[in-house]
């Protein structure tokens, strides 16, 4: 599927794995960390105008609302450039959300799109059948100038999920389980294709969470086939045209993994790699100081509803800081309307405006030396959420919510 999308965007009819192609991109994305550097590089190219003011998207979401003077300065560089270039899709504080949740919500990424973003989790849009991948700031600079970028054509690994999912299991558990199985470089340079009866039954929110973490296995793309759920999602957001690509029946794969999800437990990834996974039920000895629920992986409505189901009428452990971050303004408002925010606040949680904040150790929940957090985020590298001697345990929303109540890694059955 990835090869077909790349070929359709290049000037070649047939492309082969390992080949370098120059391809036209449908969308170029940057944020307050990567875009200022891209703008510096763009200015060196000595061109005045970006290739298309409708195809460049800028989202200040990492260190925003501005956490310090330096971050404010970086945001201003991006804001000034957006105004100068008259960029249509610059999302100011108040309209912004976490980029990879916001763009699909706004109908800006569609099936068949070749999308690049100076953020490694750009692969999230694979849930829409879009070939989307993270690149660097120089890539974004060149793509803003030319509308094109170099790509190495990847091979594909196919993942087929069968069986029946247990209660509380979401896409996050499935993808953590998968990364635990193949390792953090198990899909290095590869396009991952997720399929099977379990995938057909998954919500779009869970599919986004899975595609989001393809990069944590080294993947270039994390693709899902477009089905009725995708189409109804996309058509509820936009009436723009799009093209659906499917893998051929005789497509060649570099590997095929069949995974039986029956009996799969809720997953937790221990520090300091997303591949250090365990069943959450076997992780009960780990006491924690903080819970973070949010991020481009798990800050969507499905996640918040699951958390509310567990926290409703209960109190979080008094020793724990529980930080809940709806990923976009729309999700935040919907959560208010549905009464979820009241449940969270009564349970003793704080609810924040959309930001990537704590996920990357930026702000809004930094860990001190020796502290531990359970987080629905995507990385648990050394120092990821703060002090180099702090620890992050990755999990889905159900484990995060249950752990907030007990003060140690827990599964919902312990608290419900």
């Amino acid at each position, binding site marked *: 599927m990835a090869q077909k999308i790349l070929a359709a965007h290049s000037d070649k009819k047939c492309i082969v794995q390992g080949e370098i192609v120059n391809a036209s991109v449908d969308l170029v994305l940057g944020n307050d960390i990567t875009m200022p550097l891209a703008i510096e590089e763009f200015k060196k190219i*000595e061109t005045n105008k970006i290739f298309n003011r409708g195809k460049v998207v800028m989202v200040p979401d990492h260190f925003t609302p501005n956490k310090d003077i330096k971050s404010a300065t970086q945001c201003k560089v991006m804001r000034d450039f957006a105004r100068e270039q008259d960029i249509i899709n610059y999302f100011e504080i108040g309209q912004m959300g976490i980029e990879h949740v916001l763009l699909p919500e706004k109908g800006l990424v569609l099936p068949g799109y070749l999308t690049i973003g100076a953020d490694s989790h750009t692969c999230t849009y694979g849930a829409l059948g879009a070939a989307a991948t993270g690149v660097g700031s*120089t*890539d974004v600079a060149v793509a803003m100038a*030319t509308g094109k970028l*170099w790509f190495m054509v990847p091979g594909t690994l196919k993942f087929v999920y069968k069986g029946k999912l247990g209660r509380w299991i979401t896409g996050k558990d499935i993808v953590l389980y998968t990364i635990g199985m193949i390792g953090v*470089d198990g899909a290095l340079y590869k396009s991952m294709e997720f399929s099977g009866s379990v995938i057909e039954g998954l919500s779009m929110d869970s599919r986004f969470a899975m595609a989001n973490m393809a990069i944590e296995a*080294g993947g*270039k793309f994390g693709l899902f086939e477009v089905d009725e759920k995708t189409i109804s999602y996309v058509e509820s957001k936009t009436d723009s045209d799009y093209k659906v690509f499917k893998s051929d029946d005789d497509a060649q794969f570099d590997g095929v993994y069949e995974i039986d999800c029956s009996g799969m437990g809720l997953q937790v990834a221990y520090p300091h790699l997303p591949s250090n996974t365990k069943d959450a039920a076997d992780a009960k000895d780990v006491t924690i100081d903080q819970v973070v629920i949010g991020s481009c992986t798990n800050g969507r409505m499905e996640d918040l509803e699951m958390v509310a189901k567990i926290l409703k009428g209960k109190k979080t452990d008094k020793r724990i800081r529980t930080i809940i971050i709806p990923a976009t303004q729309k999700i935040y408002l919907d959560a208010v309307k549905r009464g979820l925010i009241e449940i969270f606040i009564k349970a003793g949680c704080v609810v924040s405006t959309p930001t990537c904040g704590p996920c990357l150790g930026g702000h809004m929940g930094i860990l001190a030396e020796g502290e531990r957090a359970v987080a629905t985020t995507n990385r648990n*590298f050394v120092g990821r959420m703060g002090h180099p001697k702090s620890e992050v345990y990755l999990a889905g929303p159900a484990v995060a919510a249950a752990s907030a109540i007990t003060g140690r890694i827990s599964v919902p059955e312990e608290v419900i």
Partner: protein
Amino acid sequence: MIIKDRAIKYGNNVDTDVIIPARYLNTTDEKELASHCFEDLDQDFSKKILEKKVIVGGENFGCGSSREHAPLSIKACGIKAIVASSFARIFYRNSINIGLPVLVNREAASEVADGDELEINLVKGLIKNITLDKNYIIPPLPDFIQEVIAIGGYINYTKKQFARAK
């Protein structure tokens, strides 16, 4: 282009959060970024680079974030090349795009010890471990990538394309 220098050796899965922690990403100043390079992994890094200017890593070097600040900070430290068993793909393309040579050779990377003297010939595709007196062949990089590195990065390459179009 020949690079001759000593190796700083690291292990597998060196991630971008330890190369340049996100708390320092509120600037694009190369020198400032360089002053924090590797500080969460190796507190002696700033001393090591006084006499060693090639980094040798294991598998999946540079995994994690797309932050170009990672290879930029390494380059701004005066590091001349990185040799690894494998690279994470965004880090790999970011390095090429800024003209920092990145070389994949599993055998060379695993046999190098910290402090070994290396001679890297990018044109011939050769890594020589002078300390071990052993040569390793690097598969030739695609022409496009060689061209980008030779011209000093993707921005220079694009400028040239623009000039040609005019």
